[in-house]
């Protein structure tokens, strides 16, 4: 079982960002408490195409980019993988990381109605550049990437350090679970 975990971790790093180190994906499958389902010990784990939303460097909005995660059966695990990719480096030049450096995902859970609750670490606020453009991009990158990649997730509630917050840096209303605001997408 341990061998499978190590193998999956290695695969995760390949799947997340084309062979870059696994450290860029802080929440790879195999994290404590999450055991992804693998098929055959010797064959690569099945993968799943997902869509991540990345802000453009010119702050013109979010653009969708495809990526792959492991096709684990747990929607929570898939959500963690998606967020792990968002916390990594952007897939190409001209796109930027939506979330502040050092931000960690603390908790993810999904209720029966399809509301995912994601708690980020304090860095989400403390290291945020601020500004409406950043906040809109950060929130919608999280919300849009999760709702587009994990079918069970219909809406997302963002918490910081387990606490509900009114806003991240004084702009977007986070008091309710959110769906992707299509207006945040780049034209």
């Amino acid at each position, binding site marked *: 079982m341990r061998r499978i975990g190590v193998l999956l971790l290695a695969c995760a790093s390949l799947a997340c960002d084309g062979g870059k180190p696994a450290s860029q994906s802080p929440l790879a499958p195999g994290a404590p408490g999450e055991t992804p389902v693998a098929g055959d010990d010797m064959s690569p784990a099945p993968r799943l195409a997902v869509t991540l939303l990345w*802000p453009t*460097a*010119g*702050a*013109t909005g979010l653009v969708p980019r495809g990526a792959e995660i492991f096709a684990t059966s747990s929607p929570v695990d898939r959500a963690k993988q998606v967020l792990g990719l968002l916390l990594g480096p952007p897939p190409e030049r001209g796109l*930027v*990381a*939506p979330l*502040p450096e050092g931000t960690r995902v603390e908790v993810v859970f999904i209720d029966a*109605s399809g509301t995912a609750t994601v708690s980020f670490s304090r860095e989400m606020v403390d290291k945020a*550049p*601020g*500004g*409406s*453009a*950043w906040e*809109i991009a950060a929130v*919608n990158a999280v*919300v849009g990437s999760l709702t587009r990649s994990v079918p069970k997730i*219909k*809406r997302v509630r963002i918490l910081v350090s387990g606490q509900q917050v*009114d*806003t991240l*840096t*004084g*702009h*977007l*209303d986070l*008091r*309710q*679970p*959110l*769906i*992707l*605001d*299509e*207006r*945040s997408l780049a034209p």
Partner: protein
Amino acid sequence: MAARGGLKRGPLAAALVTAACLLLPKPSPARVADYVVERGGRSVELPTRTIGRRDMVDLEEAARFFGLKLTRDRKRLELVGDPGRITLTVGRAAVLVDGETVVLQGEVDLDDGRPFVPVDFLSRAVPRLFDETARLDARARVVTFEQTVRAATCEEFDDRVRVTIAVPSMPRTSEVEPKGHERRLVLDGVELPAQEGGCTFGDILTDLTVEPLKGRTQLTFFVGDRFSALRVLEVETEKKIVFDFLSETAPAPAPQEAEAPSRPSDGFDLVVIDAGHGGDDRGAVGAKGLEEKTVTLAIAQELARKLRDRGIEAILTRSSDATLGLVDRTEIANRARADLFISIHANASPVQPAFGAETYFLSLEATDAQSRTLAAFESDATGLRSTGQGGGNLELVLWDMAQQQYLEESSHLAEAVQKELNVLAGTRDRGVKQANFLVLRGAAMPAVLVEVGFLSNPSEEKAMGTAEFRQASADAIARAVLAFQARRQMRSGAP
């Protein structure tokens, strides 16, 4: 009882008792433990004597503590100060507090030439002067003053009278069938202090009473000829219930619809300008250290000056480096019944290239129907509820979504602002945008948020530090406000 028994023995006995009293020397004052007076966080020990088994306190010391000037004209003593005047007479128990008589437990007396008053002077006469209450604890020898708790406070506007009732916890509110000019509501679960009147009444609301009953409170409002509708808003977050008595000229609440406070006038003369962030919240910070809160305050102040020069009154949500909540900012605009709400911000991006100005108005796209339903339930439990008179049913209202009915006007204002900002040299048209901004949600008037530029962009940060940029931005927004004003006046047919 002994005295009463003695009197029953006949006129002779009574005469003997009286004679004995007259012949006996007056009991000499004895120094006893001082009374302590506590008021407004201050306290004082008042020299106390016992005269004829009655605790008497030093009037001069008391006057000094209460900030009153004591004057003496033979037997007549007067305490005078801002709140009013108390007149006492040596040898008499009756004192006048602003013309009203209060009878004390004993007479005002002198000890070695200094006036002393019965201790209940402190708990019965002085509080009337200050419109406060005081508790006398004879055992602990303490008199404690407290602010008078008025259940209802009133504000009068042209088109409505607003009565605000502070409650310790949110009661269940029910309305009794209106009877003539009487509107009666019962607040179950709270007992509020009794009150009669206490407001300046006119022809919308003529009187009110607050009557505590067992476990509940009955409110009775007497409405006048100009009264047309009653709107009740329960503000759980602030533990208060707001009763708006609307006149015929005020817009009546639409039954069964979410309804928000609105400004009835078609006039256009007041803009609330919100300088984004402030105090502990620096907002975005440029590479050179320029803080968003400084830029927004400077532009907001400049904009206020420019609008006032053009005959439009402007209120700033903050005029200094103060910390202010987002909801509080909108609340200032709502309370002032402003015609416009403009929130000034400076933008930021994780990387440098982004530049230009953006103008936002509210979008509710980011919340789906289920979220809104959830919000309604959560609001019911923790936020704002409204009860309307229509049908007598409690009607759920989200003030939080007050901006919804102004979205079209807000979009026109945003376009006008963005158009003017685009004219500024060096800015790029990033266009009018919509977002689910908390500071805009509760605004009961057209409202926009202006991002004047990117602090994360070095050249824009440099510009934002200059008076020229701030004046130009303020000028552009002021021109947009005037254009919006002209548009509205043209549509309403106003001159």
